[in-house]
């Protein structure tokens, strides 16, 4: 069986062909080595970078952008959105700061991507 997918690692968007005709998974069509890794992971368990925002206690800057790290399973994004919705940011942060560690015991951290000056 073979399947064609679009690589999302970089803007080039290579068309990858995943096939297991020979009994083991083969990835072809990538123009760089990152495509191979992406293709294998897609066949196994698709992972995505999840970015969203978290609430703050300030009215003039009501939201601060965040990313979840590492990547989360595509089929669990809803659950992680629910967990992130429960966060309230009440102090200053810089991009890269961990706002919430080990979200709901999943091993996933919530990291600020924007600066927030609480004053």
């Amino acid at each position, binding site marked *: 069986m073979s399947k064609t*997918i*679009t*690589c*999302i*690692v*970089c*803007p080039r*968007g290579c*068309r990858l062909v995943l096939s297991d005709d020979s009994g083991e998974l083969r990835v072809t069509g990538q123009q760089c080595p990152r495509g191979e890794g992406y293709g294998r992971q897609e066949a196994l368990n*698709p992972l*995505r*970078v*999840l*970015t*969203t*925002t978290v*609430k703050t206690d300030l009215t003039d800057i*009501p*939201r601060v*952008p965040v*990313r979840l790290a590492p990547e989360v399973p*595509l089929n669990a*994004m*809803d659950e992680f*959105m629910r967990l992130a919705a429960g966060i309230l940011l009440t102090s200053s942060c810089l*991009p890269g700061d961990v706002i919430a560690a080990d979200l709901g015991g999943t091993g996933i951290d919530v990291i600020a*991507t*924007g*600066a927030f000056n609480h004053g």
Partner: protein
Amino acid sequence: MSRRWDVIVIGGGPAGLAAAVAAADRGADVCLIERESRLGGILKQCIHDGFGTLRFGERLTGPEYAWRCETLVRERPITVMTDTFLNRLERREEGFRLRIVNRNGVRDIEAASLVAATGCRERTDRQVFIHGERPAGVLTAGQAQDLINMKGLLPGRKCVILGSGDIGLIMARRLTLEGAEVVGVYEINSEPSGLTRNIAQCLEDFDIPLHLNTTVSKIHGKKRIEGVTVGKVDKSGKPHNENGEFVPCDCLILSVGLIPENDLIAPLGADMDSDTGGPAADQNLETTIPGLFSCGNALQVYDLVDYVTESGAVAGEKAAESALNPVFRRAADDSFLNLEPGDGVAYAVPQRIRVPLKGDLSLFFRCRKSAEAAEVILEQGEHRVFGRKLMWPKPSEMIRVEIPSAGFPVEGESLTLRMAPIPERVRN
């Protein structure tokens, strides 16, 4: 006396930030003007990742990319004026005079060189000929992005997206994650206009249908939008009236193109390119007005911020050289070769090339049709200057080629950039 700078940069988005840094690094005294309170431009609300794979070798989010660019500005002796509007722009004998308004009042400032990094605007419903009532719930993708990401407000529960531009695709995913239903994305053309990877990770990941050759022909509802009529279009892009389908929704989001914002510089008389919507520029990104430079989405709508940064850096560096070094200042007898888009090429930047070339030339262009493989050819009359094979060219993705300076023409007629199909049998 008005304060005078070597270089004034208008706009604090990624292009303007890069221009200010590059100009300062060339030794220029630089002032950056931004109308919003914070630097970063539209990147502030682009919270998704995928920025910077070329510039930084990492997948950053928009705010992270902006933060890195802003930090480079803050580390330099650059005067940054936020919450500052530019009211009037005049060309003077030796540069430019700007009338600015901010909390300190109204005042005039001057610059030897000017970099216009004013970005672009979104096309609205009126500009794609959707007429009728103006109910609430019709907004551009950027407005929806601002509401959700900056203000934490959901603009609708059941959304239709018109146009498959990148911001529309990104918003389809974002709305879905925030709990709204995205009924579908409707694209009038036969191909999506956003990046292929955004079709994959924003629509396919969430089973959001993409309808090609289809558009919205009517908006229903008086106070609040209640639905839209969608239908297939004929070859000329006009909707068939008889086969329209009513799709209920409480929100219509438009992602139907971006228009370079040049209202400030057009009155100065810079030659404009009707294909890009930006000014005609040379490889230094100098417009037809000496000392006036253009970069970023004001010059041409890019699909990658990495290229926006690069164009800002070129404009900033050259603006500084122009201000500091009178020899660099364009002399009346400088020669230019015009570059015209030929078969299969929608537009090409730069529009004119200053010759002789002092280094390799970076050309940016968009093709008109998708192909598995094609050759891009630069020629002057019958003389072929450059050719390169391209895999998977498509109109939605800007193409960049590097033309070596060796053997590049120094005079003569206009150059033409065209695409030639490669027959299948010679491909392998």
